[in-house]
């Protein structure tokens, strides 16, 4: 008897599943989204872009926002050129998607990628990733004022950042210009090497993202001097912003979402609507807090305009600095 009941229940469950599936595909026949999503991460696992993308996918799946499967794949190479190039090849389709980062703007400036940031169909900018100016915890200067005094007295200081055609270089140069000292800029390829370089006393300050350096800040190993965002970080209430010191329009890393070029209107609409739901979830807020990202939402064409502005600003500043 027991046996019978179990089979009855499972038969019912099976029937229910089948009918649910049937109803699902019947209801969405033709309407977006009815296929699996091919989600490209243009960088390797473990990086900032990867973490953001996987957080989003996790939220989409947990809240059943995307009815079909989402396949996530890291397609890294060529500073993002490979992954976004892959998305470019899906022109006109609505089932490819990718997250953006600083390289989305700088890589096309540097190389002939065959695409520009504005070519892609924008979903939206979701957050801005700002930076900290960091000094060794044992250095003679432990506040922004002390740093400026030290640097101006010395005349020329040695500072570091990731890459040359990159926002780090722009920030270091902007601060130096504003405060009237000269810099020798040392470009690094890896965060780890830059951090030990700072601790070893080889460079005076470096640029880091709050998410990757907060552990060392909390341990007192390094000291943040300046935050490039529009307002002070909650976690670091004593660290002044660039604007407070008269340095305006410091660029930040755009953390956004894009579809292939010329994606169908309904796909774009669907994603804008859905992402507006995603950014309201507590999981997304927790992600922003944990990674010290600032909420900065610009949807659709506003995002494209923002990308365009940022890229011209980058190009102008980097040309001025002789990096391009």
């Amino acid at each position, binding site marked *: 008897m027991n046996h019978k009941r179990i089979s009855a229940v499972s038969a019912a469950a099976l029937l229910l599943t089948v009918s649910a599936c049937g109803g699902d595909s019947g209801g969405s026949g033709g309407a977006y989204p009815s296929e699996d999503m091919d989600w490209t991460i243009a960088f390797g696992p473990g990086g900032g872009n990867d973490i953001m993308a996987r957080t989003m996918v996790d939220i989409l799946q947990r809240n059943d926002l995307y009815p079909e499967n989402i396949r996530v794949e890291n397609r890294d190479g*060529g500073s993002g050129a490979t992954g976004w190039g892959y998305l470019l090849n899906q022109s006109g389709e609505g089932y490819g998607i990718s997250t953006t980062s600083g390289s989305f703007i700088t890589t096309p400036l540097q190389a002939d990628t065959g695409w520009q940031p504005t070519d892609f169909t924008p979903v939206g900018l979701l957050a801005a990733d700002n930076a900290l100016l960091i000094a060794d915890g044992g250095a003679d200067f432990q506040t922004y004022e002390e740093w400026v005094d030290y640097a101006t007295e010395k005349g020329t200081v040695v500072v570091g950042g990731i890459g040359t055609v990159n926002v780090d270089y722009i920030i270091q140069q902007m601060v130096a210009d504003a405060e009237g000292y000269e810099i020798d800029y040392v470009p690094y390829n*890896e965060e*780890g090497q830059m951090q030990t370089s700072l601790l*070893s006393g080889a460079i005076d300050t470096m640029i880091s993202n709050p998410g990757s350096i907060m*552990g060392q800040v909390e341990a007192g190993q390094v000291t943040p001097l300046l935050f490039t965002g529009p307002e002070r970080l909650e976690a670091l209430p004593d660290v002044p912003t660039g604007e407070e010191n008269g340095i305006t329009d410091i660029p930040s890393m755009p953390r956004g979402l894009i579809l292939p070029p010329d994606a169908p209107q309904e796909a774009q609409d669907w994603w804008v609507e859905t992402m507006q739901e995603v950014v309201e979830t507590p999981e997304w807020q927790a992600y922003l807090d944990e990674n010290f990202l600032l909420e900065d939402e610009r949807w659709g064409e506003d995002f494209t305009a923002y990308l365009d502005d940022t890229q011209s600003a980058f190009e102008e500043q980097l040309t001025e600095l002789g990096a391009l």
Partner: protein
Amino acid sequence: MDTFDNLANGIVAVVTPMNLLLLLAGVMLGMVVGVMPGLGPSAGLAILLPLTFSLDPTGAIVMLAAVYYGAMYGGTITSVLINTPGESATVASTFDGYPLAKQGRAGPALVMAAVGSFVAGTIGAVLISIASPATAKLAATFGPPELFLVVVLGLLTLIVIIGGNRLLGTLSALMGFAIATVGIDIGTGQQRYTFGSVELINGIDFIPVAIGLFGVGEILHTLWRGGHLEKLAYFNVSARSRDFWPTRQDYRESVGPITRGSFLGFFVGATPGAGATVASLMSYNLEKSVSKTPEKFGKGAMAGLTGPEAANNAASSGAMVPLLTLGIPGSAATAVLIGGFMMWGLQPGPLLMTQNPEFAWGLIASMFLGNIMLLLVNVFCIPAFASIARVPFRVLGPAIIVICVLGTFTVNGSIIEVAIMLACGVLGFFMRRFGLSPAALVIALVLGPMAEESMRQTMIISGGSFGIFLDRGTSRVLLLLMVLLLVLPLVMVLIKRAAARSVQRYGAMRRRSARGADAADRSDDLTTDGADAGAGDADVDRDRDNEPERVDSQ
């Protein structure tokens, strides 16, 4: 012994049936990934990292540590059996590992490599427990000048590899440096030799080049020499026969190299940026320098395999020191791990060890247990792997080429890299044919960009003055080491000659004083032994000419 309590607690925390299962699965998965040419520990971690998100942090780290070691050892298997390093850290293992396999000693080579890795991993785990604070202090003194000097220490291996064959060896290394210049120039952000191709922006990766030069190049060369027609009688060794397992002499010869390699590897591994590749190359260099029979290196010296194997394994323990104490990733693999930490909701940084002690010590404990698991798994698996050597070449050769193509493609999914790999296969064939050294090319390719980058950074920092190397304490120590490493082989030769002379003199004295024919015989023996050793050392330079690739090329 607080730290040992911590380690013991860590081990206890990790030893649950579930974790042991994860450990076993991780080691097996890692080995499968590592055996694919081109896929080493960092690629293995990257591929399997997403799998661990559903696990709790301790379970995840247990599995990843196992994957890490499994992949590392998988790379050794391919280095020894088919002369194809899975990643740069196992390049040094091909120098003597492959000749050993060619002599039909693949079994002993693989077992000894596993034993070396196990011992090094154990020493590494103990060193993390007791020497972390001191090592972290050392690591924090490493800026670009120090990194440059460490890379140069690794480049010194080129001298050993090139040996007496100066012109062709130097040419090979220069080819490696030339390939290394492709990509974005770190100093100015300009592209070099990319010809507008997006695929070349990040330069030519080590992996397709190494797979092509070593793996495919070797196949082509064997074909050319008619290897497919030969009967591989000497490979016909079964796992049940005694020849399959290392002899007592293998163990005796390996004690020194493994111990030295473990300590060297740990400390070099702890320096950010240099890591396992430099450690294994330095160990090879060191072992050849201190060996009594340096002429055997490159022709199947057990010490030339076990030293670097121990060093690269200890280096992966060493790399955990900056990760756990400073929150700084010291290698590509640990950079992937840091990403994992953040996804599990852990804040990497100096406070990780105090805020999440069970996690940090769990990591160290699982590295230790991963080593034990690896040794156990290998005792059962090596016979299976080594039996590859018994497959006839006409079957094995094409299969290896397919695996090489597949492995190269899997890393980045790039067809261009497959093309580079195949082109390097042809290059590798001609390099063997004309006596150039693929190993020198690969070392130059891996270390060249690191040397250039750190040198240019150093020069920006110092404003163009070389004095910076003498101003900084750690730099001075490294310079001293470099001088020592250069002088050591010469000194050893002198010491041995002196020893041989004194033995001779002693023998002569004995001859003069001894009356009995018995005693005279014994002293004669001594004399010839001593003279032989001396002559062997003097011949080092000439013997280095005979690289394994060329021994059988004609």
